[in-house]
């Protein structure tokens, strides 16, 4: 099965609303990264996490290594938040990030 499972696979939000994306890990993840990919393919870094939480503007992310999951919260969604969100996890000393299959987000007016 998938080592990194992202949910939901697709999401439609109205501008100004809030939502949460999730990654569940079947590997012993030690670090997690979140990225946003635009339609042209460029990947933008959002967060790099060891267990704990981080916040940046309208985005907040948490990583719980014991419960093997990470979340990305989007507050007050804007049109420019549209794209595909990926999480990638590293386990142990094998530094080879494993990616989920992404959550495709569309924010509409």
């Amino acid at each position, binding site marked *: 099965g998938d080592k990194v499972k992202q949910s939901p696979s697709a999401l439609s939000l109205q501008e100004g609303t809030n939502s949460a994306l999730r990654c569940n890990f079947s590997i012993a993840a030690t670090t997690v990264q979140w990225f946003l990919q635009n339609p042209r*393919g*460029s990947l*933008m*870094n959002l967060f790099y996490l060891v267990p704990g939480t981080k916040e940046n503007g309208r985005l907040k992310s948490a990583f719980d290594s014991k419960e093997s999951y990470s979340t990305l919260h989007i507050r007050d969604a804007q049109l420019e938040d549209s794209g595909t969100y*990926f999480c990638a996890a590293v386990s142990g000393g094998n*530094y080879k*990030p494993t990616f989920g299959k*992404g959550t495709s987000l569309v924010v509409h007016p």
Partner: protein
Amino acid sequence: NSKVIQTPRYLVKGQGQKAKMRCIPEKGHPVVFWYQQNKNNEFKFLINFQNQEVLQQIDMTEKRFSAECPSNSPCSLEIQSSEAGDSALYLCASSPGGGAETLYFGSGTRLTVL
């Protein structure tokens, strides 16, 4: 926010042809990764380097794919004999290294094999 430069942006090849793409990592980043992203958004790790040395690579890379990161030159990934199934977005990322640190991706090379 990334300073990783990948060229070309698009690459079109016939089956059996060589396909070569390049990557200039962010300055000061000794670790370089290559990933293949297919049309289903699945990322497949291909190979990574620390400076000029290969750290890890998958079997596919050992057979038809070759990659290098020479000093003072761009890193490169080359497919010796392209197949239709190689059509994908090839992403290069660099990292400051020293452990599990964040990846900075380039914009990718989109390869189409006709």
